[in-house]
């Protein structure tokens, strides 16, 4: 049956506060860290202190006998090679965390320390072949891959009026989830496993653990006997998709101790091992004609996935704009933890390597970079316009053009933009404004997402799904959609999510959760409504097809009768209504379902900065984010996602950097002290505009929100001081160095 959103929407698109806001604010919301089961043991993991080493021997005898120790587990054995400082070696579980840590320190491990590389520039200078084997090679430096086709750029460079050569780079940054990775694992008497895990893939984590134990111990452990619970979660950003080593280890320790075990990573382990975004450093040659048309773009870039095997560390290059282009991409594998997906993997890097070069070329052409962007936007695909008029390919030229106009208005671009370095400043303070564009998918997942709605005779309504709320306010989205369809208020819906037995769902990656789950909730609530009418029609002396919903009541318009929701539900008597709705990308692609969910968004961000040219300190004073979004489900949630993404982008621009030491092979700043994250005083005024097109349906925007902020800030600094600061973070020393290189000209 065709699915569609209600034409008249009472709640969808309005601002609804988070249903779990009070629980989170008061601390009654229980995160994995807060779970304390009877007889709980604490697990801790011994990690290799060296960036590359072979284990010569492990002697855990003292740990096994240490006070309070209930179980030990050897993660690695003598002879194993370890490829980065922080790799897991051995684990113990004890009655207290203190006992566990004391015991861990008695484990004697002898290492043969091996050569290592932890900095991109060192690896490029001399490949020491210290990476884990990949396709029979241990080379640190290898050819990478990147999105896009390699084209002829020679003509473009020849016919250009100006060419700019520049370097641009972003370092490795760490996920820094506020709630660290980890879980509590408990086996029951029947051989089932329950984990309370901080994960962005509830069902995926349960399945992975089932597969791991069934395979390793040849036991019958169907996925239905492994339960994963994630009621509340403190951020993942792409780094929390599976049980991870600590998940397997906690369950192993729990199994041998016969007691529940908790392992939550401490901050240093979290920062070093539990996720990072790859670096990207590019040498760019870009050229254009005096009218602002960019004729060629060529890039040679490299970045590090750590020990990860990823061939690519960047997204589509060039980004957004369809220049004639040629690229060379190199992956530099280092003795550092593997990269993980981080909020729009590859895109922030590509955005930076593209959008900053545009402003530098615009300066050479003496053009306003906003105009240059308008000149080079992707064109409308006429085929798409004919066959799928609501698709991004059909609309992107229109969307970007409109968004640039809105962003320019909201930021007063015309008033504030000036040729780079030529603004009116007071003394050493220079103001600047900069823009950058981004794109993302955000479709429904290919695999099914279920939502189940139950209506009881007392009028209570429960919505269940195994999906997870990473802090994105997905719980509120589900409640809001069900409430819309049943004529109730969101707070009247009991939303039960984050338990793997509540049907099928997919991991929250790619901004797919809302576009997968909101339509599933729509279908479930619509089906539940129909079931309800069928069940109570006779008692209401109506035909099911004559019944309808109005806010708070069930109505029979033809008979001019109405019943309060409770009255109507009471007619269920001993019965209960239960209906499940399912959504997939395949469903979204059905013509009859057009406008329920969609894929593809564009966004524009404009940043303003004040640069203190005496100290090099940059303050970001304002960011305007204009985001194409399709149908907004919860405007408050959407705007909050945008603000969060922009905050992340400001940190990427100004503060964040993983600092590795080439002598020790260790991270210097595995903390929140010198791994810098801005506080409230460091944050700009954030202005969000949702460029919604409800007819397109729901599209996820969690990731696009953060893609272009740092590039916009980089361009704003260029606009302020008239010289490019090539690498993020834009620290005082880098800004001063750029100013000095410019030779004091201002």
């Amino acid at each position: 049956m065709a699915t569609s959103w209600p034409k008249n929407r009472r709640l969808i698109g309005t601002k609804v506060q988070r249903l779990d806001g009070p629980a989170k604010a008061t601390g009654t919301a229980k995160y994995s860290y807060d779970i304390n089961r009877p007889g709980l043991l604490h697990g801790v993991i011994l990690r290799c202190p060296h960036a590359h080493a072979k284990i010569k021997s492990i002697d855990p005898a003292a740990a096994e006998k240490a006070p309070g120790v209930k179980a030990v587990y050897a993660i690695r054995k003598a002879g194993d090679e370890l490829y980065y400082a922080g790799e897991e070696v051995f684990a113990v579980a004890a009655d207290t965390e203190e006992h566990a840590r004391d015991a861990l320190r008695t484990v004697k491990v002898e290492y043969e320390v091996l050569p290592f590389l932890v900095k991109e520039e060192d690896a490029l200078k001399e490949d020491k072949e210290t990476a884990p084997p990949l396709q029979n090679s241990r080379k640190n430096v290898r050819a990478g891959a990147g999105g896009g086709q390699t084209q002829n750029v020679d003509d473009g460079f020849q016919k250009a009026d100006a060419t700019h050569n520049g370097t641009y780079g972003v370092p490795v940054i760490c996920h820094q989830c506020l709630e660290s990775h980890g879980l509590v694992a408990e086996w029951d008497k029947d051989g089932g496993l329950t984990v309370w895990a901080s994960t962005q893939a509830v069902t995926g984590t349960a399945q992975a653990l089932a597969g791991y134990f069934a395979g390793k111990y040849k036991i019958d452990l169907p996925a239905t006997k492994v339960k994963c619970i994630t009621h509340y979660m403190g951020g993942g950003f792409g780094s929390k998709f599976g049980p991870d080593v600590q998940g397997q280890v906690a369950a192993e320790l729990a199994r041998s101790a016969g007691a529940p075990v908790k392992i939550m990573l401490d901050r240093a382990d979290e920062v070093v091992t539990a996720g990072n975004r790859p670096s990207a450093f590019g040498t760019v040659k870009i050229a254009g004609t005096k009218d602002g048309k960019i004729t060629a773009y060529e890039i040679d870039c490299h970045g590090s996935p750590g020990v990860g095997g990823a061939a690519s560390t960047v997204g589509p290059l060039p980004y957004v704009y369809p220049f004639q282009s040629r690229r060379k991409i190199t992956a530099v594998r280092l003795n550092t933890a593997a990269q993980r997906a981080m909020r729009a993997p590859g895109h922030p890097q590509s955005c930076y390597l593209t959008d900053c070069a545009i402003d530098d070329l615009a300066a050479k052409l003496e053009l306003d970079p906003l105009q240059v962007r308008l000149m080079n936007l992707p064109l409308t695909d006429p085929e798409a316009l004919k066959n799928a008029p609501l698709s991004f390919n059909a609309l992107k030229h229109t969307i970007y053009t409109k968004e640039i106009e809105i962003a320019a208005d909201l930021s007063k671009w015309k008033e504030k933009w000036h040729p780079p370095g030529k603004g009116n400043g007071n003394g050493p303070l220079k103001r600047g404004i900069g823009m950058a564009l981004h794109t993302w998918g955000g479709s429904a997942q290919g695999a099914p997402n279920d939502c189940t709605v139950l209506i009881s005779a007392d009028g209570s309504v429960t919505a269940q799904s195994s999906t997870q709320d990473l802090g994105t306010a997905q719980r509120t989205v589900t409640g809001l959609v069900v409430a819309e369809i049943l004529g109730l208020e969101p707070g009247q819906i009991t939303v039960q999510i984050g338990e793997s037995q509540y049907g099928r769902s997919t991991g929250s990656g790619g901004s797919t959760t809302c576009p997968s789950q909101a339509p599933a909730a729509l279908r479930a609530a619509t089906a539940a409504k129909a079931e309800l009418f069928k069940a109570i029609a006779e008692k209401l002396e109506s035909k099911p097809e004559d019944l309808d919903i109005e806010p708070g009541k069930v109505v029979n318009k033809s008979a001019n009768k109405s019943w309060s929701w409770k009255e109507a539900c009471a007619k269920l008597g001993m019965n209960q209504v239960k209906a499940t709705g399912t959504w997939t990308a395949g469903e979204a692609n059905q013509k009859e379902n057009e406008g329920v969910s969609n894929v593809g968004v564009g966004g524009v961000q404009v940043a303003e900065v004040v640069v203190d040219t005496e100290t090099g300190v940059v303050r970001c004073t304002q960011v305007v984010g204009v985001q194409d979004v399709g149908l907004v489900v919860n405007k408050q949630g959407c705007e909050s996602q945008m603000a969060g993404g922009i905050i992340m982008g400001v940190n990427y621009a100004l503060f964040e950097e993983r600092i590795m030491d080439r002598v020790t092979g260790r991270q210097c700043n595995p903390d929140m002290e010198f791994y810098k994250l801005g506080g409230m005083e460091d944050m700009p005024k954030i202005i969000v505009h949702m460029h919604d097109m409800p007819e397109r349906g729901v599209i996820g925007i969690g990731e696009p929100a953060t893609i272009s902020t740092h590039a916009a800030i980089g361009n704003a600094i260029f606009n302020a001081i008239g010289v490019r600061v090539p690498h993020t973070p834009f620290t005082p020393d880098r800004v001063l160095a750029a100013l000095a290189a410019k030779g004091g000209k201002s």
Partner: protein
Amino acid sequence: MKNFTYYRPQSLEAAVGLLDAKWGTTELLAGGTDLLDLQKEYIAQPDKVVSLGAIQEPRFKTIHVQEQTKPYAIIGAGVSLAEIAAHPGLKKNYPALTTAAGDVGGPQIRNMGTLGGNLCQRNRCWYFRDEHVPCLLKGGDKCYALDGENRYHAIFTKGHPCVIVHPSTLAPALIAVGAEVEVQGAKGKRAMALEKLFQAPRSAADREHVVAPNELVLSVWIGGQGLKNASYEVRHKQAYDWPLVQAAVAFTLQGNRAGSVKVVLGHVAPTPIVADAAAKALEGKEVTEATATAAGEAAAAMDGIKPLAQNAYKVKLVSVAVKRAILTAAGQKKYWEV
């Protein structure tokens, strides 16, 4: 954290009596914002921890500001940074100090951290703080920062085998206004100019100060009322960060002429640095942007400055911080504010 015996003595005398004559076996616990970190990271592994939390002796726990006759102030070492930052008498007379105290860390740190703890805290060098790096201050044979990641380290490196920066921001402010410190040992008290409290550590046997292992900091005395004074920090982040460079200044102002000038630098050397060259440049001069700039440049040209591979930018920041501190102290327009 290694197990330890916890003591909570009721008097200063009892506290001092519990301390050992060598470093490593006993530690004093004031606010705990530094010691607990050090213990958790196994950098400090004391057998005994002596808490100062139960000590109520006024000399240790209160702020006394005398404004009449011979004006002075006494601040107990057990007073919290938040109390110092909010104290009206201190704010009026020693804005250098209250600004510095108010900018430390975040509210939690300022509520727990104490004056004594701030002066005696260990350095923040990331090599020192990593248990797995055998640096000079942990009994190793080399300073890893010298040729390593040293963007935040000392620029006054001449003669220093270890290139930490002293972390206290209260110390430069207090030294600028001529503070003296009173230290209590088993055999009584001794007092010294605050700048004499600090030393550049050279091995695991040294701390960043000269307080003996069986002494404790009792209080700080400040005369110097009537001095114009200010502290300026160049910070990467505004919230919760250490300064890249700090300058604290104090001087008398007659007409617009500066006298008895003192300039102290923080976060540039293993100890706070009294910048006599900068003071001399301003002494007797009218305070203007030009003379303040000249004083800043004199500070940045001091003997002893030899930046490391990654921190030459801090030399430039020294001149700016000194200039801005001078102009702030003199009550002139803060041209650098948005």
